[in-house]
């Protein structure tokens, strides 16, 4: 992609991806989902998830799966608030850029 994806946008995308799963989701699936829209490397996801977890935007729990423990991620309330903030910001941001590109409402 031509445009850089900053930390905030990456956070927002990860939160959005995780929030779609009511029961939570796991690292590999999150990575695959994010990679459907962004060309991120697989090693990028762990630090992002870990940071969001530390910021209490994500919570983790372990669940039995296939005879082993699998770590699941779930968006917290704080995470949801953060995601909504990101969504509003993104809407404003893209609207302004689109206006600029299409030369529409320039005052």
């Amino acid at each position, binding site marked *: 992609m031509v*445009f850089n994806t900053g930390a905030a946008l990456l956070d927002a995308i990860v939160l959005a991806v995780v929030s779609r799963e009511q029961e939570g989701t796991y690292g*590999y699936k999150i990575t695959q989902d994010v990679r459907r829209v962004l060309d*991120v490397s*697989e*090693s990028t996801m762990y630090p992002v998830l870990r940071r969001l977890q530390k910021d209490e935007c994500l919570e983790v729990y372990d669940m039995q799966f296939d005879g082993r423990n699998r770590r699941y991620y779930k968006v917290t309330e704080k995470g949801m608030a953060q995601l909504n903030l990101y969504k509003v910001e993104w809407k404003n941001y893209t609207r302004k850029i689109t206006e600029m590109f299409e030369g529409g409402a320039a005052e």
Partner: protein
Amino acid sequence: MSRTEYMRELDALLQGISKEEREEAMQYYNDYFDDAGSENEEKVIEELGSPAKLADTIRAGVNGNTGEAESYGEYGERGYRDCRFDTSESPARREGYYEDSYSETYGESQSQNDRNPFSERQYSYTANSNQGYTYAGNQRYGAGQTTEMPRKKSSAGKIILIICILVIGLPIVVPTALGLLLAAFGVLVALAISAIAIWVAAVATAVVGILLGIHGFGQLFYSPVLGIGMLGVGCLLLALGAVFTVLIGWGCIKLIPMMFRGFVNLCRRPFQKKRGECR
């Protein structure tokens, strides 16, 4: 490299961080391999990059959460980026980038023409980017947070070294230079004085020649032989004295200013040289 080897190496490389962080990361990547399935094992290893690179990414994430590094670095689509070392983000600054880091970044990654120009300086961990580019990015990132301090130290060390050299060298260099200067000056003065002395001698010879001539002319009437002899010797001395007077006078007029000019130039040289270097 198999998954087991990969994870063992990663674990070893993560010894620097806290036990909790290490276990967390190890659990994540164990899960990751499990969920990817054994059929994707090689693909995952390739995607994640070398254990060293992955460990760097994990460590940077840990530091980013605890230290002030957070305000500089960020995780982007292309991996970890640190704005302190990232100067090519905006097209406006790209001129400088091409000049400054051609040899560092561009030189190492010959085949990046297919990549977009905005991401050249980012710290990429994308496994599908070409090897040279990834390596360059990783190397810069790896060196990033640690090179700042030693560079400062080395410049401080340089200053201390210069001061030491000055302190030790001053008692040797200053007297030596002063001695050399005085010696040169002494030689010049001696040359000038001897020149003057020779000139005086030449003038005196000429004067003696004249006096001898006059005296000889007087003697000519009493003792012609002695008179003629004295006249002759007087003329000879006059000629010799005149020649030497003229020669030395000319020499002094030409040579002494030349010598002094040379001496002055010698004294001025160190300062001129410095000025020349600054220019």
